């Protein structure tokens, strides 16, 4: 394909405009978070970054969100992955309905989802526990579209039927086939799915805010009400952290896209 200089100029203009449009807010955050902390100070300061560890609730919220993410990952590993394998392997007629079911949370707005689950969570917080970790239940539903896409792509890439048959003839049990044979071969897909799960759980706000659970995002919003500089610093730190996480994802094509949109 030949590239004319005109094309190159257009490309440069577009990249510069849209790229700047997306980068300027990040730069502005860096600028804002190093602004003088108290009135009268003139020099740049890292004060807003230094007080991050001292923020009430923040460490606790991060810890809780990470535990929640861990539980969600375990649910993926022991519930969603085996189910996806089972459906691919033994129930090809259910593939389409299963896929649609997994994609539903993408279409249903989170706010509508809350309306549905709020009576359940009210009951849970009254009768069982008030811990935000219970949110892992609704979160594992929320992340289904994303994990399913990466799992399904991984399962399509290997010939799991032959693998399963070979293993069964050699005397492997069903659980051995799923956990010992197939799961290791789709490792990349599972790792991708888990990264996505962490990012989504750490970034979730709608559900936890309405159900009154103090998760990471809810605490950031809360900090923002009292101290803008610190909230900006925390926000920038977490955005960069997740960006770094996504750049680490081992995937050659379309690296780091949480959403591999190819629905319907």
């Amino acid at each position: 394909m030949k590239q004319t200089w005109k094309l190159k100029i257009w490309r440069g203009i577009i990249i510069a405009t849209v790229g700047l449009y997306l980068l300027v807010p990040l730069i502005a955050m860096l600028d804002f978070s190093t602004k003088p902390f108290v009135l009268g100070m003139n020099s740049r300061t890292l004060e807003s970054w230094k007080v991050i560890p001292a923020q009430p609730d923040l460490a606790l919220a991060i810890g809780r969100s990470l535990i929640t993410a861990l539980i969600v990952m375990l649910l993926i590993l022991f519930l969603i992955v085996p189910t996806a394998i089972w459906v691919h392997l033994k129930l090809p007629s259910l593939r389409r309905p299963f896929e649609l079911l997994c994609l539903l949370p993408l279409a249903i707005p989170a706010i509508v989802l809350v309306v549905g689950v709020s009576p359940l969570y009210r009951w849970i917080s009254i009768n069982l526990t008030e811990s935000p970790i219970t949110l892992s239940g609704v979160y594992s539903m929320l992340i289904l579209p994303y994990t399913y896409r990466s799992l399904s792509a991984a399962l399509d890439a290997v010939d799991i039927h032959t693998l399963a048959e070979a293993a069964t003839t050699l005397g492997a049990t069903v659980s051995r086939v799923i956990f010992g044979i197939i799961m290791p071969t789709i490792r990349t897909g599972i790792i991708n799915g888990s990264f996505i799960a962490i990012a989504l759980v750490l970034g979730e706000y709608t559900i936890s805010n309405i159900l009154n659970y103090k998760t990471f995002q809810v605490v950031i919003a809360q900090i923002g009400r009292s101290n803008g500089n610190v909230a900006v610093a925390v926000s920038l730190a977490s955005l960069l952290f997740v960006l770094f996480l996504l750049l680490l994802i081992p995937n050659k094509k379309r690296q780091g896209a949480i959403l591999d949109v190819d629905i319907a």
Partner: protein
Amino acid sequence: MELKKILISPIARGAFANSLEISARTAIVGAILGALFAWALVSGKPGSFFYRFSVALSSVLAQFGGVMLTFAFLATFGFNGLVSTFAIKIAPDSFLAQSDWLYGMTGLSLLYTFFQIPLMVLVFLPTLENLKPQWREASDALGGRVYEYWFRVGIPILTPSFAGATLLLFVNSFSAYATADTLINMADFLTPLEISSALSSEVGGANPAEAKALSLFMIIVVTLAMTFYALLRRRVSKWEQRR
């Protein structure tokens, strides 16, 4: 009946109209800018660090952003923000130097584009990557110029995908809640905010019935959009090489 009450309530209608307006606006702006950026990415080197970085950044902004984007927005355009400070120095009369637009429709629309453009980049990249180079070669071989290729081949082929992606963006901003909630304090501004206040009202008593009725309206809009989307996808898959 709750549904009827909402249908005739001017507040609910206003919020619904606001929601539809902001979704339509940001979907169109986001789709155009995002598609252009996606094209710029595809026409560059696919494996380069710039490409990977852009995709990862888009992913973060589109799906992790939420609350944090509000702070990014305020750090940019809000009081003492980077752009507003700059604007006060350069052009004190421009609207960037003022702050009254921040917490209204204009501000929220601008904020929404921070996640709509990246989402479009993510959605549209696969489509552009699936454009067959043979079509371009055929057009070139037959003496077609660059613009002729785009107007006669490229754009007609991409139109259904583009429309589908725009619908996706529409649904995305229609159901967005986090950014709006952290930026705007008025419960009646958008339908999601109204639902949330009906669900957990701090002032009056909560009204779950109202929340459910409003959710139904949201579901209707989303279902309509997704139906169109599915129809468009069917057209697309006629030519697009499926993985």
